[in-house]
């Protein structure tokens, strides 16, 4: 397994199903398809790309690119959206719980130990970044944290 170092550019529509979305403000540059979390210092309704190192639960998936201080639509609980695999060689199997990663906005399979900030469930295989059909994979957004002592 080799991790990508930067979030890829989405080539497909992010929202797959549902209409539970809301408008937030970007605390920093955000790319379409990135998992986002609420920013504790950025002001009300402000989001930034989710990163597992921040220990903050992601709330949803960005619909489009946004510049710092710009507004963006975030797809929330119950919707299905495209998300992007941190791994550039190995797909994530359908049915896997997905969590944030050390690369902003990407997903990986949960279950690596420690507290997991699960953002949803893969509804199909999430292709590896190097895959020829790479364009992200469908995830049902249902965030929750798993506390593993």
């Amino acid at each position, binding site marked *: 397994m080799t991790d990508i170092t930067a979030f890829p550019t989405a080539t497909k529509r992010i929202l797959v199903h549902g*209409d*539970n979305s809301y408008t937030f403000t970007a605390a920093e540059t955000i790319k379409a398809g990135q998992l986002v979390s*609420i920013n504790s210092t950025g002001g*009300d309704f402000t989001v930034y790309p989710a990163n597992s190192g921040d220990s903050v639960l992601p709330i949803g998936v960005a619909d489009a690119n946004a510049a710092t201080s710009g507004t963006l639509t975030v797809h929330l*609980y119950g919707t299905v959206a495209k998300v992007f695999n941190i791994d550039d060689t190995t797909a994530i199997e359908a049915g896997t719980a997905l969590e944030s990663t050390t690369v902003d906005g990407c997903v990986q399979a949960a279950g690596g130990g420690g507290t997991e900030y699960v953002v949803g469930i893969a509804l199909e295989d999430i292709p590896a970044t190097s895959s020829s059909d790479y364009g992200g994979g469908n995830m049902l957004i249902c965030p929750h944290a798993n506390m*593993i*002592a």
Partner: protein
Amino acid sequence: MADITAFPTRHTILVTDPEVANLQTFTVATGETVKAGMVLEIDPSSGDNTVKCGDSDDAAPVVGVALYGATAGNPVTVACAGTICYVANESGSAAIGESSLLQLADVNVGGAVVAYTSGAGYVVGVALEDIAAGGWGRALIMPYEQVVS
């Protein structure tokens, strides 16, 4: 830290536009008097499809937030997972920071929330803005049982 002694009054609870999002709400009976904005849990002692004020001491799962007040035996509409609602801070002296996970408060003031810290509990959702001491704030409702393994 002093807790509030009575649940505050608020008339507008639902933030998300019901005409835009296909919001998850349902109407059930309440087993006791509830006020608008109270977090609700299932009330098995009062019969099927009955809810009551959420209380961490009950160890019962959260179902959502009351959109209106109702007296015992009458219907109440509940905003469920995926909605954005105003919730009340149980603490009369300490604000809850945005991005905090929220959980049910104890029996002192049923239906209010406190910041989740650690251990098992019933999470209500995520604060989308700071929630002032004794005040109201908007939260993304995403109930789940926090299990520590």
